[in-house]
């Protein structure tokens, strides 16, 4: 009994340390706030934040904004990431098209996407389409580059194998290009979703009628710090949830991948 407990501790040692670090940080914060050593307006005690957070959540205070933010993240991800997936597969597969488009991608990719906001507003107006456009642009590049790299890293022998058995272009796509790049596509989805979330919150902060970014900015402007911390908590939970669901998707879609890498 004692032994198995010891084994458990040994196995999850790092996770326990992580947890202890977080709890320790919150505990110090709590004590400082209660003792009045830090401003209670700017740093309300974590316990107070949590109580209000759950109360507000239960009362549905953030529900509408969460839905708005979520739908922006997903529409931008689907439009930008989806088109990047198609283009990335084409650019990875066709050397000729890659040679034509690669310099353009290389020139556009390093631009901080947020800097495009004024231009996007000029093109799409002050409305929802501008916000979605920004999120799409943010999702586009990480997805494009991951997908292209995913196709390029496929072992050339696999193409020879399938060609040797008389595969058509479609066969090659279905049997080699798509499954071979899938691990990188899922990696790209992860980066693209993160980028979409960043852009959504940012855009909502500077020009939003609703959404979590808007709530965040309003709460800072009106000094409602518990709201601000609550939104930060929600955003980080959303980010964590997206990463976690992609990890599960990975185990389901590419069961052959994890062990391949550990075996090498």
């Amino acid at each position, binding site marked *: 009994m004692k032994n198995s407990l010891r084994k458990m501790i040994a196995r999850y040692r790092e996770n326990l340390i992580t947890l202890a670090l977080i709890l320790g940080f919150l505990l110090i914060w709590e004590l400082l706030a209660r003792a009045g050593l830090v401003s209670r307006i700017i740093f309300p005690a974590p316990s107070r934040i949590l109580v209000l957070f759950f109360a507000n959540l239960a009362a549905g205070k953030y529900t509408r904004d969460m839905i708005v933010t979520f739908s922006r993240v997903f529409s931008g991800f689907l439009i930008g990431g989806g088109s990047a997936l198609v283009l990335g597969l084409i650019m990875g597969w066709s050397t000729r098209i890659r040679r034509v488009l690669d310099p353009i991608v290389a020139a556009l990719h390093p631009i901080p996407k947020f800097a495009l906001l004024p231009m996007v507003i000029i093109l799409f107006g002050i409305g929802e389409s501008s916000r979605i456009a920004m999120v799409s642009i943010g999702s586009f590049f990480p997805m494009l580059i991951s997908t292209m790299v995913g196709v390029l890293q496929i072992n050339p022998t*696999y193409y020879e194998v399938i060609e040797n*058995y008389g595969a058509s272009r479609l066969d090659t796509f279905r049997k080699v290009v798509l499954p071979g790049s899938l691990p990188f596509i899922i990696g790209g989805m992860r980066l693209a979703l993160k980028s979409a979330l960043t852009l959504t919150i940012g855009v909502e902060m500077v020009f939003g009628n609703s959404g979590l970014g808007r709530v965040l900015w309003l709460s800072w402007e009106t000094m409602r710090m518990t709201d601000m911390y609550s939104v930060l908590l929600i955003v980080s939970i959303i980010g964590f949830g997206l990463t976690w669901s992609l990890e599960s998707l990975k185990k389901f879609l590419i069961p*052959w*991948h994890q062990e391949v890498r550990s075996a090498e």
Partner: protein
Amino acid sequence: MSIIIEDISKVFAKDTGREVAALDKLSFAIEEHEFVSIVGPSGCGKTTLLKIVAGLVKPDTGQIKFSGGQKNPSAVIVFQDQGLLPWLNVLDNVGLGLELKGIPKATRRTQVLEFMFRFRLDGFESHFPHELSIGMRQRVALARAFLTNPDIMLMDEPFGALDAQTRLILQEELLHTWRAEQNTVLFVTHDIDEAILLSDRIIVLSDRPGKLQTIIPIPLGRPRELTLKDQPTFTSIRQQIWKLLEPEVRKELKLT
């Protein structure tokens, strides 16, 4: 299916701009149902030759002719490794050739399972290649190749990545299967013993660019067994081939 290899040359242009000659005016012929091995130092274009015969690579000069003037006979390559698609399980990997021929799933499954049984792979249908030993992976590759019943079997050091013991077992297994199937085989290897044990004739190539050096017939009867290796005929052929190859290998290593 007999194959005539006529005057084949191939030069590769490297990214650095340097040109590497792989094959130089190579000519020889392979009879129908014959098992021919190619030995030679590393980099003498053996793999390139197989890919040319399979139609995956175009030669710079020369041509490959097949019996009856047939244009595109089925020629299947068995690769040294990496020949299995890692995202397909064993069942789908073995059935890949049939699937691409458009054979319906139900028919295919019966045939695949029969061949998996023959290669003693039954029970591993849902395993992925990375879950198998290299020896088993090569058996999957062999099962897949024999299942499509190709006119020509092109083997590119299929046992090259195996340990010595596993290699012996798989050589025996290949002899056994080939005795039943009788495909025309062109077999590339580094292993002189392997070449003698399996082949009717051995083509010895020179260092890069690969040129025909000698063709050695193997006067050993069939069926063959591993014990042949101790016979005087076997050992004298081994010495004969090594005498031909040693200077080429030294050349390749820049030891002369």
